């Protein structure tokens, strides 16, 4: 199986560990990820905020490149996924003059939903060597992957299940909680720290209240917000994993603690305590 892969800018920088875990997991599953050739930034919130044209055109360039290959696109980043889908929607309305040949018809998946399909869950299950028994997690989806439902296609936007299903397949004890899709503040913290921190801290607190030992995410910005807010806290540490990191862990015969060195909140002690890392 072959898919067009749109990594997005963060996976080359801040979320490089996410990229590596994705690579390992998809290799193991035997799914070929073909990076979209010479992809460019989706424009993120900035283009959306300042120019509607740019918010349509920037993703359109990548869609056009992917359409040439013909495979479905899979996007690991919630924001990229949202922008690609948004752009597709606008392309179909045909009100924008787009300099690349693009129809908007290609399917764009968010990576969690792609992997949570029954067939994939089955093949994940077959590859589990190290079930994450006893690891109590909550899955955190954030906004952009699930909302607005008309763009993302999530009908269960209040209580999405994709990561829950994947984490449960990997053997983790997944706890239901109410704040799965509550906004973490995204990039607002860079310019208005107190706003970002108040939102992120609340999610962390709610996750801990729900009894989570770790938080599972799929979005680089969510990960970095939830992880970095714990940087100078001597209190309870709740590591924040990309869902593919957990899959990689459960697939691997040998685990290297270095996989997690980019985390601010070191997950190694937790994994050791659970007997998942020697």
């Amino acid at each position: 199986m072959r898919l067009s892969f749109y990594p997005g800018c963060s996976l080359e920088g801040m979320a490089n560990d996410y990229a590596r875990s994705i690579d390992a997991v998809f290799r193991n599953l035997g799914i070929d990820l073909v990076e979209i050739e010479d992809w460019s930034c989706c424009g993120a919130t900035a283009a959306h905020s300042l120019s509607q044209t740019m918010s349509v055109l920037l993703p359109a360039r990548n869609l056009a490149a992917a359409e040439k290959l013909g495979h479905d696109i899979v996007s690991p980043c919630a924001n990229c996924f949202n922008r690609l889908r948004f752009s597709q929607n606008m392309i179909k309305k045909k009100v924008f003059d787009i300099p690349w040949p693009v129809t908007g018809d290609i399917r764009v998946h968010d990576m969690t939903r792609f992997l949570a399909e029954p067939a994939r869950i089955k093949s994940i299950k077959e590859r589990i060597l190290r079930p994450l028994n006893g690891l109590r997690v909550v899955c955190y989806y954030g906004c952009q992957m699930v909302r607005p439902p008309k763009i993302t296609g999530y009908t269960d936007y209040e209580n999405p299940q994709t990561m829950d299903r994947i984490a449960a397949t990997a053997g983790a004890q997944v706890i239901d909680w109410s704040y799965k899709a509550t906004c973490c503040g995204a990039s607002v913290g860079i310019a208005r720290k107190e706003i970002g921190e108040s939102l992120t801290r609340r999610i962390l607190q709610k996750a801990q209240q729900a009894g989570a030992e770790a938080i599972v995410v799929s979005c680089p910005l969510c990960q970095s917000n939830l992880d970095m807010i714990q940087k100078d806290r001597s209190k309870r540490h709740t590591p924040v994993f990309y869902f593919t990191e957990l899959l990689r862990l459960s697939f691997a015969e040998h685990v290297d603690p270095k996989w997690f060195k980019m985390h601010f909140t070191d997950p190694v002690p937790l994994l050791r305590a659970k007997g998942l890392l020697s």
Partner: protein
Amino acid sequence: MGSYLSNPVGKVIVVGGGIGGIQCALDLADTGFYVYLIEKSHTLGGTMARLDKTFPTNDCSTCMFSPKLVQVAGHANIEILPLSRILELNGGPGRFTARVEKQPRYIDEEKCITCGKCAEKCPKKIPDPFNGELGTRKAAFLTFPQAVPLKYALDAENCLYLTKGKCGVCEKICPAEAVEFDQKPEILQIDAGAVIISTGFELALTAQEGEFGYGRYRNVVTSLQYERMLSATGPYGGHLRRPSDEEVPRKVAWIQCVMSRDPARNRPFCSSVCCMHAAKQAVLTRSHEPDTETTIYFMDIRAHGKGFDDYIDRARFQHGVKYRRSMISQVYLNPENENLIIETFDHHLNRKKEEEYDLIVLSSGFKPSGDFIDLAKQLGLVVNSYGFLATEFDEPVATSRPGVFVCGGIEAPKDIPETVIQAGAAAAEASILLSAARNTEIVFDEIPDEKPIETTPRVGVLVCHCGTNIAGVVDIQKVLDYVKTLPHVIFATDFMFTCSTETQQTIVKLIKEQRLNRVVVAACSPRTHEPLFQDTLREAGLNPYLFELASIRDQCSWVHGNDPEKATEKSKELIRASVSRAVQLEPLYESSYRVVNKGLVIGGGVAGMTAALTIADQGFHVHLVEKSDQLGGFARNLKFTLEGNSPASLIRYLSERVTHHPKISVYLKSRLISHAGHLGAFNGTVEKQGESIKIQYGAVIAATGGQPYKPTEYLYAQDERILTQVEFAKRLMEDPSWTGRLKRIVMIQCVGSREPDFPYCSRVCCSAAVKNSIKLKEMNPGAQIVVLYRDVRTFGFKELYYLKTRQKGVLFFRYIPEDKPEVYDENGKLIVDFTDRSSHQNFRVEPDLVVLSSGIRPDDGAKQIARLLKLPTTDEGFFLEAHVKLKPVEFATSGVFLAGLAHSPRFIEETVTMAKSAGQQAMAPFINEEGVSQIPPSACMGCGICASECPAKAISLKHCTDDQVFAKIDALLE
């Protein structure tokens, strides 16, 4: 089609066994038709059977409903077909043939003795659907204790034998050998002249929607589940508990408009009943648990019915129910205690507020039941976009198929009284259609002969728990122990609900076994339940007047709820008094007399004319008395309706028919000036332009109508730029060039309504504003319209027009009564200043015109009629019906009925419905084949004046003799 009608079948099929279907069946069966009552589930009852109490009286729903269920269950001319559905309907009006499929019950109805052994031994427990899946029942079950038919059944989907071929315990244990695992569906062919659809509604919210965590969090329940949670027969035995831990919830919140007023979920209409439903539940919660806080989250309170606003006020100020005007997006869970968190934005503190509740009740809207769409298809009925059988304004019970009528919740979401009214109207239509076949298919009830009674009194006392209404306060066992010591008491026992069908059979048995010759029931109130028990006595061969009801609920447990000990004592005393009186009772016999088969209708408006036609079209004469010089009444003021219909053409049609109808005598410029007699034999005098005309009639319908309120506020009548909605609509139509010149207008709602002197809502004004706004925007799209409102009350499908109005760019701002808009003239410029309570801004508008939504008042003439006919009125001067829920078109005085604006403000279509219903009920006593009734004769009203004045004590008032009264008083004073 015509040929069918010349020789119609005198039978009617009623589909749906809720309150609408039951009322309709009774109305028809009492007017000479044989009725098949088809119900898809195991029992009659519908939604109303699941309710705990009903507002505004907080009467126990079961207690109100039971007499109806008993009546329908025992009616010789009603055949109940449970577990049935129509597969096919052929033919046309007058002669339909229906193919009906009846699902097996797996327990023989004839053989089952309702001992309950099957349910007791059945090993299979499932979540109880009747209780909203809270609590459990067995696979062998009785839906609820008052079920009709009162027979057990096996649940085919869960019974171990029927699903897996194992078990069979019930069959072995059944003493009546009633269990029949091999029952198969039956197909029946039924002939009928008309069909009435009353399939009701169900909650629109399901766990699939996942709204507000329903189905995800255990302490989020629907309003219907909450009814069961409050109910004495519910999963928690009438004690307020929450599902997760069965603890008493200390903070309960209601969220309104769930799956209502929600175009995003394709449910853009209002479900009409939820605002009052929530208020009632909050009030009941406060009285169950005075320490429990109750908060209702809402956007507009829709208290558009009679006495509704008053009830909301009482909820707020007397019962301390909190109202928060704020809509919720999402409910969060506190994982530590399964409490629920609601987030709102606090405007004063400018911060987000998290509030934690122990329990959240979702006031879900309603939808037609899932299988209704199939029925509609099979019957070839056209439904509206939301699956309802919505009707037209001049034919409020007609469907797209002639001869098939509709009533109740399937027509549009509606409350109990509106359902009962519409059921009466549907019955009227069927009755008119099949008039020629009346009394051709009915069978006569056999009443057993009265047996001679023993001379020594043998009194039986039956003490009712009334769920928890009495038993929750009064110590029943103590009362029973005491009662057994009273002289002449042969027997005493207690019942959970003495009024249930099952209990009536037990009472008959008891009377026979114990040779009772006096029966005392200690229960609710003779006002509502005496006739029921009298029928039971009759069935047992005992004279019905050897009965006495001790009111230990209305006069004891309800008033002394906080002092159980004294209430128990008082109950003993009340029963003692009743027993003493019972000992003195003598049999009474009713004699027959000839009924005057004529009706009198007071008022020649839409209500009066419709009621008159309903009676006259069935062959009976009607006197129609109108005080003005023309027919039409209030509706003559109206130019067009919200839905685009013309009241004028309706009036034209009605007055044409009324004027030329051979059975209707119209008296214009006339008044009724004297009235005497009793049901079936009234006589009165009509004064027509100075001339006195004596008339006779068997029933009266008071349809005295209403009048527009003439505002004294907002410069009305001082400045010609201030109009009422009625005047505005008239001008819109009559003067298009003026309409075209309007640039900016302001509408002010609730003028003369919801004020201290006239605290009721006039129901129609919000729709009037919406209607006139749409009209103006259509005629002059450039006109700017600003509507200043308190709550927008476009209930039901009228909400769609509110949406349309907004979409046309009409601006709505909310004001509060403490800070009303100010209208004034500044150098010739008209100015309106107001504060918007949503954006917290002060605004000024300089309109060309201010339109006042002035309310509706009862007509002045109502006072005279109320005096003459001795009819009760509300403080505001509207007539007061016999019972707000179940007898909305009757007065407590037999033979007198009401309809239209004289009852309360209402829309034309509602008035038409009500008038048909009143007409049908009024003519019921005319129907008896020989025109003979069994009603006590003479003009005596039982006032007792003659008896007390007679120096020789030669006159006595039977059933109220000195001996009987003194016995009661002496016993009380013992």
